[in-house]
């Protein structure tokens, strides 16, 4: 019993220490990325753009495919219930609201975590193991400015962009089902969607998306930078980055959803 408690205490302590380190990285990245430019520090536009292409453009096909499929699934599932009420017209609104407020940001975040968050952790972990991070530091270059900020900024900007695409494609997926199986015309579906959606639904999703982007970037960088040892540890960091990102994204999602719910 004592040993169970001890190991629980030990892992809790590690987790708290790790959360502290993650927080410090976030603070350093904020100082470097958002305050630094006003103090005349270099803005790494090219590096940021390169990362944005990797995070955004390269993830777009997968995000589109998944959101299209989930849009279709949502339409079918809601039709299954709404049919009993004879309220098939509500399918359009249900798909649109759940896509924009919830599913598009969440699915996009999960795809980007798997594709790019893991890549960040592996890349930075390999750089740590091969002493490239040390080399940067000895040169007097900050790994935070040089590596973390471009990735973080790229993610905070591109995840919301991806979500806009995901919103549209998810709704088109629902529309495809509506036209093919539910007997709702394409134009009518669009009109119903526009009736049901309010701007707040969309920007709620976009605010979440930006927060998710920050989480993915910070966790990926943190896990990569704290890698020690060899190739095996890089693999562990990568796994850990994906798992922790997804858990934190979903926790943040609940928090944000509750907040928006309370505020109306």
């Amino acid at each position: 019993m004592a040993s169970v408690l001890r190991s629980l205490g030990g892992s809790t302590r590690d987790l708290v220490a790790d959360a502290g380190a993650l927080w410090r990285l976030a603070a350093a990245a904020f100082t470097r990325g958002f305050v630094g430019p006003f103090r005349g520090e270099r803005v790494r536009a090219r590096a940021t753009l390169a990362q944005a292409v990797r995070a955004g453009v390269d993830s777009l096909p997968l995000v589109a495919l998944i959101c299209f499929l989930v849009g279709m699934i949502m339409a079918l599932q809601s039709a299954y219930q709404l049919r009993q009420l004879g309220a098939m017209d509500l399918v359009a609104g249900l798909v649109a609201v759940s896509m924009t407020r919830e599913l598009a940001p969440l699915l996009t975040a999960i795809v980007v975590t798997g594709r790019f968050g893991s890549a960040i952790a592996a890349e930075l972990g390999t750089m740590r193991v091969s002493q490239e991070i040390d080399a940067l530091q000895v040169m007097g270059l900050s790994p935070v400015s040089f590596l973390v900020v471009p990735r973080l900024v790229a993610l905070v900007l591109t995840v919301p962009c991806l979500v806009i695409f995901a919103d549209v494609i998810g709704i088109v997926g629902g529309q495809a089902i509506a036209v093919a199986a539910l007997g709702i015309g394409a134009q009518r579906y669009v009109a119903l969607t526009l009736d049901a959606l309010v701007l707040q639904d969309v920007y709620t999703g976009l605010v979440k998306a930006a927060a998710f982007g920050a989480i993915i970037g910070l966790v990926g960088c943190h896990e990569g930078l704290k890698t020690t040892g060899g190739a095996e540890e890089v693999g562990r960091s990568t796994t850990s980055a994906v798992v922790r990102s997804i858990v934190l994204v979903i926790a943040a999602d609940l928090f944000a959803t509750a907040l928006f719910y309370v505020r109306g």
Partner: protein
Amino acid sequence: MERLDDEVNPNTQSTPAAASAPAATAIEVRGLRRTLGGRCVLDGIDLDVRTGETLVILGASGSGKSTLLRTLVGLEPPDGGTVRIWGTDIYAAGDAELARIRQRLGMAFQGGALFGSMTVAENVELPLAELTEVPPQNRRILARIKLGMVGLEDAMDQLPSQLSGGMRKRAALARALALDPEIVFFDEPSAGLDPVTAAGLDHLLVQLKKVFEMTLVVITHEMQSAFTIADRLALMHDGRFLVVDVPEVVRASRDPVVRRFLDRQPPAPTDGGEKFRRFLEELG
């Protein structure tokens, strides 16, 4: 936690006054202690590196020399003791001050630590691009000069992964020399190289040293290489120095542990046997 956050702000750079009047002691180490995983890796190290000398820290693997080097360049804070470079305690200095000192240091890492996504030339250009105002076309010229010095002009546009181990070490040296540093640290120049390539690298170090009059701190476990390049040798064993002196004195030492290292004798059979017995016991 390491200091990740210490880039120099280009606006606050100034020419350090110390550069014009070099002190006799470049690096002053006092009472350095470090314990890693319950083992004392650095056990009260005192060391003075004089300006312009080549100091070679020689030791078997596990003697603490890598940790010492990492502590000297500010990568691993010690548990106790101080490292002063040109009189500044690097673990007490502010970010900007540390960055200014680091601009005058160069380090070549054991495996090269070249940035894998950049060509060899871009690696050498990076410190110039980030820390100086040199325009791009001149950076390229400077990179060509530095790579020419280490004999890698022809490999400028190759990626680090396309280079051999010896070429990678030379490229790392070229990058370390990019900002014309006053002190250069070299981690294991001959490790993992064939004897001919290793001798070539030693020769290169001696040559560069002559031309640039820099201070050179090299850690190695290769005795031959150490005696070739050293002005002074520091023999490290179990986290402390057995002897720090000119090569002739080290060679003539009568200390049994020094002799054992120099004569390439394996550890005394008693403790070897003890270890082997314990190893067998652990295997069950």
